[in-house]
């Protein structure tokens, strides 16, 4: 009898099979059920805690105003962003909104991965943006600037300069002399990265441009090499005697940390250095000044400034909520949100729109930087700067950088493979002759371009 009851309680074979079928159906249906609400995924690399806090607040406010729309934000480090994006592209799981570099837009746009954003830009105002930063690609604007990244402000320790009786250097020779005079024991004159990464390529490029070279001419023919490239590498080799020993591993943050630990006297880098110091080491602000970049052989110290863009993925690569994503973009890039965003890392996050740049709240700065308008002005001054996308055929005339207006779709593949950075490594770490390093770099660039054209 007992045995019978136990047997009765056992699920029948049919019931088990039904259970399997139900579980399978649920598994297949779950993603669609979960996606019943509109979800906008948002991937960026602004990982500063105040900036992330701003985004969280803005997202909460947007969701409150737009019931039924959920924003899922993910912040990743700059170093891993491209890898994540390319892997998601391959898997067809791209977030609706994501951070994109200018030189990546061509390839992504040509493959139909991006949704045009002309309507969003038109609503904000085309004349609000610097023209080179919203240049259409094949007649469409497929990304929208959310901030301008200026990586080349010449920050220096005024107290150390005064103690040595040194003035801010006007040219490369004076820069070398200053770096040498300010190096002693474990105190270093200056810093630049020698890693296999984009920021090392960026440093080399600004010296290369300052020596009068460009990677491409205005017809987008590769012209990299020659005397300017050799001079830039020779300069970096000479300067490397006065940098911390660990530069071969340096990434963006290390350039800030090196300055904040007071181990380097000169740091050419973005105003993130200042915004971080303002929050974590405010006493250093009083001892810090900014100056013009030392002029290279071409007569100008060319800097690097580019638009940091957000892009909207197309349905082809996994985007699902395009209309809601556009609405969210418009919301965070305008009004008080744009000012609040810029103030989260002031004066590092330079607003791309003229109206926000002239907003009285922004001009008043943050309490930590009150009274140091000179530091903000240095950060906001993007004159004589280039970026990878706009450098093709640029010239230096009468002490001013003149661009050709040509947007370069080819250079991204060279920079993504860190070819300029590897040249710097060969010269600085392996003592390779700069001429040989340039020849190696040139041949790598040619091979990369040939392969890119084939694909």
């Amino acid at each position, binding site marked *: 009898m007992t045995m019978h009851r136990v047997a009765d309680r056992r699920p029948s*074979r049919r019931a*088990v*099979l039904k259970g*399997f079928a139900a579980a399978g159906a649920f598994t297949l249906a779950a993603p669609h059920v979960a996606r019943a609400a509109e979800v906008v995924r948002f991937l960026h690399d602004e990982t500063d805690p105040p900036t992330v806090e701003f985004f969280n607040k803005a997202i909460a406010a947007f969701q409150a105003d737009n019931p039924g729309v959920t924003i899922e934000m993910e912040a990743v480090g700059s170093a891993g962003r*491209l*890898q994540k994006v*390319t*892997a998601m*592209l*391959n898997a067809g799981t791209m977030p609706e909104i994501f951070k994109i570099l200018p030189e990546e837009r061509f*390839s*992504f746009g040509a*493959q139909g*991965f991006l949704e045009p954003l002309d309507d969003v830009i038109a609503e904000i105002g085309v004349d609000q943006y610097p023209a080179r930063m919203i240049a259409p690609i094949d007649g469409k604007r497929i990304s929208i600037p959310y901030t301008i990244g200026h990586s080349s402000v010449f920050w220096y320790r005024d107290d150390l300069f005064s103690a040595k009786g040194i003035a801010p250097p006007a040219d490369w020779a004076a820069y070398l002399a200053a770096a040498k005079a300010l190096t002693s*024991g*474990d105190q270093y004159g200056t810093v630049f990265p*020698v*890693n*296999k990464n984009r920021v090392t390529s960026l440093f080399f490029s600004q010296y290369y441009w300052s020596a009068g070279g460009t990677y491409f001419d205005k017809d987008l023919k590769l012209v990299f090499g020659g005397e300017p490239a050799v001079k830039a590498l020779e300069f970096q080799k000479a300067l490397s005697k006065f940098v*911390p*020993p*660990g*530069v*071969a*591993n340096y990434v963006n943050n290390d350039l800030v*940390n*090196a300055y904040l*630990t007071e*181990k380097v006297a000169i740091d050419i880098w973005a105003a993130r250095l200042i915004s971080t110091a303002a929050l974590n080491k405010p006493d250093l602000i009083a001892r810090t000044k900014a100056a013009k970049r030392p002029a290279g052989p071409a007569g100008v110290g060319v800097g690097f400034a580019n638009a940091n863009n957000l892009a909207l993925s197309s349905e082809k690569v996994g985007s699902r909520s395009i209309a809601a994503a556009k609405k969210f973009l418009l919301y965070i890039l305008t009004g008080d949100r744009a000012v609040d965003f810029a103030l989260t890392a002031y004066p590092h996050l330079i607003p791309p729109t003229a109206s926000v740049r002239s907003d009285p709240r922004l001009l008043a700065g943050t309490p930590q930087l009150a009274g140091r308008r000179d530091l903000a002005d240095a950060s906001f001054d993007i004159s004589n700067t280039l970026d990878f996308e706009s450098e093709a055929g640029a010239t230096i005339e009468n002490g001013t950088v003149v661009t050709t207006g040509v947007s370069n779709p080819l250079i991204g593949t060279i920079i*993504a*493979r*860190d070819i300029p950075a*590897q040249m710097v*490594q*060969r010269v600085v*770490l*392996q003592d390779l002759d700069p001429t040989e390093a340039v020849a190696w770099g040139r041949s790598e660039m040619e091979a990369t371009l040939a392969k890119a054209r084939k*694909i």
Partner: protein
Amino acid sequence: MVHRGDRLFAAVALLPSVALVLMLIAVPAIAIFALSVQEVSLGRASGTFVGLANFRAVLASPDFYTALINTFIWVVGNVVFEMALGLGLALLLQQGFRFRSLARAVILAPYLLPTIVAVLVWRYMFDDIVGIVNRGLMVVGLIERPLQWLTSPRMAMFSVILVSTWKFAPFVVIALLGILQAIPLDQYDAAKLDGANAFGRFLHITLPHILPVFLLTALLRTIWSFHKFDIIYLLTGGGPIDATTTLPILVYFKAFHDFDVGGAAAVALIMLALILACLGVYFALLRRSERRL
């Protein structure tokens, strides 16, 4: 006699597990084989069939041989140091002394730490500006300027092997302690009565007992070191230059820096062939050692 219905039921019941295994193992494996014979770039949905061209390109590339040599140095360095240190520590911990339990816990701690935590701590300790290692060496006067532990092409491989040994030698200790405790003590007593010294007792009693476990542990550490990615990537990123670029790092670079997914898959399959060859050698050696014993 098994009913047909029961067989069907068993098959259906097994289906989820089989599907899971297929999804997690077979599908990626087939995908890698398929990718290795295509020219396919990340971000592009489809590739073109190129036969063995990716393998030819990889085998003709100096980067591959640099990575192969680095992998050899990395694996041999790891296995030799870990096995030597692990054996020494296991023999030490086998002895009776005060605070032995505490010593065991301390020695095993690195293995329990998450890799990311361990690596970040070591990176900080090796830091060129504020690292305690350089600072300590400078304070005691051994060096005048900070050493480039992770940033000199000459020192980087040594440093990553050092960190890996610190992290994984405790695994060897755990494996060997178990077998050491299983050796009958009366064998040592008898050997002592026969006049055998400590080395003799180790050679003739300890070693034969622990050899199978020792070899198996060495094999596991060889395989795990061979495809180890995280420690090297997090410490040096494969640099400086290519000083610590091992084959797994090369796969990553090919896929995510060069966007050459086909080439990356080809390197991964060559790695698979190499590790299978190592396994063959290991099992041959094991059979020989078992025959001798």
